[in-house]
Structures are given as structure tokens and as C-alpha cells.
């Protein structure tokens, strides 16, 4: 470890990409790492998508500006494993086997559950089907277009699970949004912090860590995770196999998976995301229990989409989504 730190300090720089400072506490994570190791972080295209990250790895391959490490959606990670270098962090054994590639080319890092965030002026929402009611006119929005954004695809899938669908078919979710649209309750703008603050999207389907009142910056904001549709989603870390700063990249991973009070796992938790080592940390006592208690409560069995289920859903959406909501 000390050798790795020395080598990383010698490189002096780390290139990261698509890490919004307000997302999952990345602002603090980046500044903590910089302070701790004296390594400068270049943060490129903070609002980029996972696909943008992969495009940057390919287009900037061999230059000093290429991204060293990626924080990437699973569907994009799985089809691009040839671009990544395998690496096992020192806390490897605390990461559930289902949440990492056996050779370490990708390792899930943090995630959450699909949730419905809503303004408390609506009272308390206890089921997804309530949203079809007349008081939600023009109120319900997704975080993006589900043929493009992973969070939106999972929002539709959550609606599908809540309406009796399964992870293998998103059709019931699409027809739910079709009904929402027909009743005039679906707002087709992309929900962002700005639209929530302005009050134009008072009901938002999004990951729970992006739906926290502290994150959206609105105090009268509640979060609901339906117990019949607990849909989990995790992002993954990967190292560019031609990283311009290979040691700094590996040190960054060690930092992100560190269970220390100022390590990546607890910092994500403070940002409202659920770190991948959460269970192990809860049992060994290293978890920031105050931050863990603030997460929205979850009851029910979580569902995680497999690669083929995610692909099926995307294919179905590509053919049916625009028709359903027009």
C-alpha cells in the first residue's frame, strides 16, 4: 500500500470523468482524496453519461487526458470490459460476489433503490397506482428519457413491478406511463434539481439517493420506495487499462472502497447512496450509523436487473415508449 501511495504521488494527477460534485457526495470525495494524498484530480465532463465515459476512453486513448477511472452504469460496463484493467481492492472480500466481476474488471461501488420523491403537499403516497389520481395532474416526471438514461429506464421498470410485471418484461410499466399520460398526469420534461425547486415536477421517479430532500434542496420533500417494487441499481468502478496514471487510478479505487471514517464507502453513505460494502461495515462496526439511519426505509425483496433483462427492457422501450407517451 505504501508503495502504491508513493507511485501515485509521483504521478501527481488523476483523471476522472462524469462525476457531478453534488452526486453521491462526489464533491467531498474528490476534495478529501486530493487533500489526503496531494494528488490533483482533473474532473472532466461532470454531467456526462456512462456512454460518454466509454467514448472518452476510446477517443482519448494514449493521451495524458484519457480518463484513468470510470464510474459507470452496469449496462455500459458489461459490453466494454475489454477496455478495463482487472484490479482487486484490499477490501475485496467484503464486496458481495454478485456485485463484482470474478476477475475484478468491474466492481460495483454504490447504488440505491428506485423511489418516488414527492412534495409533501400531496400528503403521503403509499402506492404507485395512486399517481393516476386527479390531484397529480401534470405532476409526475422521470429523470430523463428511458431509451437514453438508465435512471429513467429503471423508473419505468419500477412502475412495471408495482403493476404486477416482472423484471423480464417492462411492458406493464410502459402501459402505466401511457395511462399517466392519458390522464394528463405525466410531465415529459426531465426532472432536475431546478424543476423540483421551481415546483414544476412535484413527483419524480429517481434513485433514492437522488431523491433525498438534502439532495434536491427542497425541505418539504418525501421519498417513498414501494414494498412490492424494490428495484435496486448499482454503479460500478472500472480502471482504464491504458490509464495515463495507473498507480493513482488504483490508489483512487483503494480510497473509494476504504471503510475508514473518511474513506469512500462512508462518504458515499453520507451522500445518501448505499455503498457496496454496507452490510460488511454494519457488522464490523465501521459504518457511519448516523448517515445509515437517514436512508429511506426499504421493506421487501430487492430486484436487480440482469444484463439480458436490461437489454430486453431497452429493446421494448425503443419500439414502444414514444408511441405510449405521445
Amino acid at each position, binding site marked *: 500500500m505504501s508503495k502504491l501511495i508513493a507511485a501515485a504521488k509521483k504521478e501527481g494527477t488523476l483523471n476522472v470523468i462524469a462525476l457531478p460534485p453534488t452526486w453521491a457526495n462526489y464533491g467531498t470525495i474528490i476534495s478529501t482524496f486530493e487533500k489526503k494524498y496531494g494528488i490533483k484530480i482533473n474532473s472532466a465532463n461532470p454531467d456526462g453519461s*456512462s*456512454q460518454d465515459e466509454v467514448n472518452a476512453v476510446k477517443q482519448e486513448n494514449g493521451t495524458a487526458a484519457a480518463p484513468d477511472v470510470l464510474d459507470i452504469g452496469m449496462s455500459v460496463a458489461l*459490453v466494454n470490459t475489454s477496455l478495463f484493467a482487472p484490479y482487486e481492492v484490499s477490501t475485496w472480500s467484503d464486496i458481495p460476489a454478485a456485485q463484482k466481476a470474478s476477475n475484478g474488471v468491474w466492481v460495483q461501488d454504490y447504488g440505491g433503490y428506485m423511489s418516488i420523491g414527492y412534495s409533501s403537499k400531496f400528503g403521503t403516497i403509499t402506492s404507485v397506482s395512486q399517481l393516476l389520481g386527479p390531484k397529480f395532474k401534470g405532476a409526475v416526471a*422521470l429523470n430523463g428519457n428511458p431509451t437514453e438514461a438508465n435512471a429513467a*429506464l429503471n423508473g419505468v421498470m419500477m412502475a412495471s413491478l408495482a403493476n404486477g410485471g416482472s423484471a423480464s418484461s417492462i411492458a406493464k410499466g410502459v402501459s402505466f406511463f401511457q395511462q399517466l399520460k392519458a390522464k394528463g398526469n405525466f410531465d415529459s*420534461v426531465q426532472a432536475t434539481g431546478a424543476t423540483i425547486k421551481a415546483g414544476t415536477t412535484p413527483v419524480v421517479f429517481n434513485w433514492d439517493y437522488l431523491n433525498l430532500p438534502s439532495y434536491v434542496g427542497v425541505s418539504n420533500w418525501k421519498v417513498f420506495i414501494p414494498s412490492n417494487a424494490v428495484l435496486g441499481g448499482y454503479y460500478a468502478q472500472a480502471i482504464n487499462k491504458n490509464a495515463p496514471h495507473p498507480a493513482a487510478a488504483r490508489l483512487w479505487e483503494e480510497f473509494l472502497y476504504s471503510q475508514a471514517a473518511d474513506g469512500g464507502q462512508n462518504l458515499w453513505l453520507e451522500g445518501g447512496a448505499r455503498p457496496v460494502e454496507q452490510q460488511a461495515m454494519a457488522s464490523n462496526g465501521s459504518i457511519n450509523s448516523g448517515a445509515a439511519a437517514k436512508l429511506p426505509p426499504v421493506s421487501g425483496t430487492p430486484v436487480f436487473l440482469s444484463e439480458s433483462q436490461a437489454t430486453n427492457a431497452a429493446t421494448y422501450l425503443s419500439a414502444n415508449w414514444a408511441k405510449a407517451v405521445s
Partner: protein
Amino acid sequence: MAVNAQTGARPVRAGRRIRLPNWLGTTPFLAYVAIFLLLPTGIIVVDAFKTPTGGLNLASLKVLFESAERSYFTGSLELCLISSVLGAVLGATLAYAIASGNPDGTVRRLYIAVSGVLAQFGGVTLAFAFVVLIGPVGLLIHASWFYDFPWGIAVIYTYFQVPLMVLVFLPAIDGVKAQWREASDSLGASTWQYWRYVGGPLLAPAFFGAALLLFANALSAFATIVAWENQIAYIVPQQIYVAINSEVGLSNVNQADVLALGMIIMVAILMTCYALLQRRAARWLR
């Protein structure tokens, strides 16, 4: 130099002068155009013909004629047509009103300054302003047609099209001389006859040229429509965005290149027509 030599007023020091070629001054501009316009255009054109395996062929262009892709182009054409016709008619009327006022007046200066600002007012800010005011939970009204394509978005586009029309059409109206109207009046022509035989034909090339400019302006607008309608791709740039960015496995860079090629062709046609019309319009405005 030649003048000085003939008059002998100031002897020119006979020395070696480095004669720079005339084209040198244009190099920065040409380099800029080459790097930021010609090179990307060339890359798109070449990539549009590329197959996934790296060879070149025409097969990928077939998607331009498939119904889904055609619908994006139809959507783009509808939106551009409606917003440019609305913008051109309203903008020309406004420009005429401004031109017939005091040429040094405050009103004229105010309108030109405001037009200069609003012609650039687009993107997320503009769409958001409309969503907040007349969207589904708007502060003023809840316009039921707000999300109808193309009318809802065309109304939003008109907000920057009208001021742009004022800016580009006003010089043409200013170029119409008062004496022509006086001459026409003194020969006994009615207002209708003046516009039918004098004013109209004079201004027509400038009007249609400006309308084409508005059309091209609407064609490339992207952020506005995305902030307005995020769920459905109606126009070509929206679908290019999905094809490049999809993180759920639907990205298809080749489709994006082919769609972009289609847009390049459209712009090339538009700009050729614009140049021809400008040439006609310029005759009367010297």
C-alpha cells in the same frame, strides 16, 4: 507608395521589403473554418458511409429512408417551417412598424436592442420559462396544447425567431426609399398597387432570404426542444442525441452520423438558396 514616388513628396527608403502574399491575412480565418467546420463535417460524412467492421459502403444510408428516420426529418421540417413562417411574418410586420417610426427615436433603439438580446435567448432557459409560465403546472395558465408537436414548441421557437427576423429584415426595409413611394403615389397608384408592383417585388428576395435563415436557425436548435419534451424524439437532433448518448444499450453512432449527414445536406440546400436570394436582394440595397 506609387503616389509618393510620382509626386516625389516623400522619398521612400529603398530597401528590401518582405512582400507577404495577399492570402496570408486570411489564414487564421481559413484555419479556423478548416478545423471547426470542414474537418468535423468531413469526419461525419466519412463515418456515415462506414460499416461497423470498418469498410465503406452505401448500405448505412438506407436508414435515411426508413419510416422511423423519415419521421424525424418530417418533424424537423414541420417545426422549422411553422416557426420560420410565423417568425418571418410577425417579424417583418414588426420591422415595418419600427422602420416607419422615427429613425433616431427611442422606440426604435429600444426594439433593436431588445431584439438583439432576445434573438439569442434560447435553450433550456427559454423552454423552462415557458414551462413555468404556461406548462402543465404553469403560473399563468395551463395550456392544454403546450405539449402538442409541432405547435407547442413552434410557439416557443417563435420567441427567438421574431427578434431575429427584425434584425435581419430591418436593413432591407430601411433600404426602401421614400421617393419610390412618392413617385408611385404621384403617378396615381393605390397603396395596394404600390405594394403589388413596387414594394413587394423589392422586398421579396430579402424577405424569403431572411425566412430561410430562420428556417436554418430552427433546424439546429436543440437544447430548447429537449428541455421542453424529453420523452419523445420528434426532430433529427433529438434522435442524434439518443443515438450517441444512450446508456441503456441503444446507442448507435453510425445512425447518428447518417442523420447528421442528412442535416448537412439540408443545410447545404438552404444556404445555397439563401445565397442566391441574397444576391438578388443586394441589388436594390446598395
